[in-house]
């Protein structure tokens, strides 16, 4: 059990800077998730923490001890790899006990600890099998067993669920969280999947291009994203964006969504320019409530998941976000800027082409600077 600190850590490969000014403090017992699109440096950061990659600058501390120049075996950490990295020629028992054997623990003690870990992970019946005789989920649990049996001060996990099928992934996700809560070991978890990040983390670090975009709880990231990238990356489906003018009316900032006037929750003096980028989450759109000021839109597509529906409709003319929006790499990077989504939970049936009333509630609209993309 330990806290983990990155102090201004840098990593460069020749002229290429993979990680810049990485500053992070993870408290004892935290479940911290590094999330970001591929190539954002999250795995590199984890490998530097593990000691598998050298840092180019800065220091790393685990439990108050500077480990920057220590080898991976001396950092008192355990790691779970994406492809599990089990030793194929060893039985499950030998795989789980390998770390203890390397530390010259005596055989009876190793065996006791392995049995205990196996019982916790329901692997007892498989202890004498080799990894190739196990299913993907079982192999994954062996990899977890190899980590927990060592009783390290931190777990490092590098996309441990990405080789599992969707159903097993959801199941294993909650198992890992439960296990971590039970053991109380500080965990750093790397994933590109923002759903995993939101559901597992107590603290999320969103990264992009080697730079930390935002650090916060899942709620904080969801409710108050620091910039356009985080806003677009976190949440599924992702946030809707549109451009709009900034006007001041009765001392309050307003913009327009089509013909509708939208009052903003931002002090007018913060909005320096004549226009800005606005975002609203699909689940915050209010559909069909004509008592609220809104605009009629024609649905271009209705995706029904039973009670839950995703309604697609065109972004008002001239308000679509074109060009470099800074949200590339998010789950819906491919999404058409011309289309907006609303997510409703409603028994009403919607038809393609139908015109519905869409309202943007006042407190739910996020405002971003059109140049820096920072949240205002």
């Amino acid at each position, binding site marked *: 059990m330990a806290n983990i600190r990155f102090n201004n850590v840098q990593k460069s490969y020749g002229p290429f800077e993979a990680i810049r000014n990485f500053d992070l403090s993870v408290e004892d017992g935290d479940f911290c998730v590094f999330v970001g699109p591929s190539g954002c440096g999250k795995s590199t950061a984890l490998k530097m923490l593990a000691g598998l990659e050298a840092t180019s600058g800065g220091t790393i501390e685990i439990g108050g001890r500077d480990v920057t120049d220590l080898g991976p075996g001396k950092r008192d950490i355990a790691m779970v790899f994406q492809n599990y990295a089990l030793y194929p020629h060893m039985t499950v028992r030998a795989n789980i006990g390998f770390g203890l054997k390397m530390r010259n623990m005596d055989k009876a003690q190793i065996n006791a600890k392995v049995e205990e870990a196996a019982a916790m992970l329901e692997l007892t019946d498989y202890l004498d099998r080799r990894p190739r005789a196990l299913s993907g989920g079982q192999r994954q649990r062996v990899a977890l067993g190899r980590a927990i049996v060592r009783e390290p001060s931190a777990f*490092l996990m590098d996309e441990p669920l990405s080789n599992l099928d969707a159903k097993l992934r959801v199941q294993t996700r909650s198992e890992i969280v439960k296990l971590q809560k039970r053991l109380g070991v500080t965990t750093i978890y790397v994933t590109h999947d923002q759903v995993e990040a939101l559901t597992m983390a107590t603290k999320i670090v969103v990264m992009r291009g080697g730079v930390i975009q935002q650090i916060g709880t899942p709620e904080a990231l969801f409710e108050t994203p620091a910039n356009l990238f985080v806003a677009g990356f976190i949440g599924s489906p992702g946030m809707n964006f549109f451009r709009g003018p900034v006007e001041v009316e009765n001392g309050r900032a307003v913009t327009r969504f089509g013909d509708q006037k939208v009052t903003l929750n931002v002090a007018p003096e913060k909005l320096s320019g004549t226009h800005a980028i606005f975002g609203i989450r699909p689940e915050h759109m209010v559909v069909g409530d004509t008592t609220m000021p809104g605009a009629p839109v024609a649905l271009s597509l209705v995706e029904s998941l039973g009670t839950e529906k995703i309604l697609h409709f065109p972004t008002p003319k001239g308000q679509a976000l074109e060009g470099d929006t800074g949200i590339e790499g998010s789950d819906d990077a491919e999404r058409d800027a011309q289309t907006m989504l609303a997510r409703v939970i409603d028994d009403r049936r919607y038809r393609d082409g139908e015109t519905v009333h869409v309202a943007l509630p006042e407190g739910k609209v996020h405002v971003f600077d059109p140049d820096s993309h920072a949240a205002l």
Partner: protein
Amino acid sequence: MIDFSSPRHRSKFGYLLLAPAVLLMALIIIYPILLSVDISLQDVRIARVGADREPWTTENYSWLFNSGEFWNAVWVTAKMVLTVGGISLIIGLATALLVNQRFRGRSLARLFVALPWAVPEVVATVIWAWMLDSSFGVINWLLLRAHLISEPIQFASNATAAFFAVCLVMIWKGYPLMSIMLLAGLQSIPEEQYQAARVDGANVWKRFIYVTLPNLAPVIGVTAVMTTLWVFRDFAIIYVLTQGGPIGGTTTLSILTFEQSFSFFKMGQGAAVGVVTMIICAVISRALVGRFASSAH
């Protein structure tokens, strides 16, 4: 008319397509083997096409098992397989580990490691024969200069020296194959296994013992079989260097086969040696392949 595209007849069509290849294989592999088994069971001096058949006899085999020459050849071959196989495995593994590292000029180093393999056997052996020459060879000169020996080693007339000279050339010629195969094996070991072992606290030596070697076992097995069979059947190196001499010191089973058949013109006995060699090779490769295949993952 049979419709070969129907599921019921599809396999028949497969056999039909395979038939020419199978026939060809039978003609160029099975027939010569049967022929030599046939000759080994007859009292043949010089085999001629169309010659009258001799009656079948086991005389060649009883000569074989009662002759000192045969058992000497078995002993020489076994010693040579172990020496050449063992040392070229060590050198091959060492060079493979070396050129698997990242360093400047790595591709050039890989080329040099593989070079002896590319030199034709006879050419290489002639060069080595010159270097090993007892009166004006560079090796004796070097050893004399370094005061390691007081008089030149007679590689041609000293049986032990001749044996090790043959082994030396065979190792020089044989280790690159080991090296190339093991390098391919090393490259197929996932990097994550090494990373996991490092996080688990395994040092370089333990990573070699617990990750590299077990992962290489199947490749080592296959390469050991190939090298063993190569030593069994190699003829050129020994014949060019020593002709099997002195006094049988380097006469392996393949040299004995040749001697019996073409020096003494006892083709029946020669064929018997060949057949026994083939059986030994089959047994060894079956044992080694089976053993390493079961340890493979």
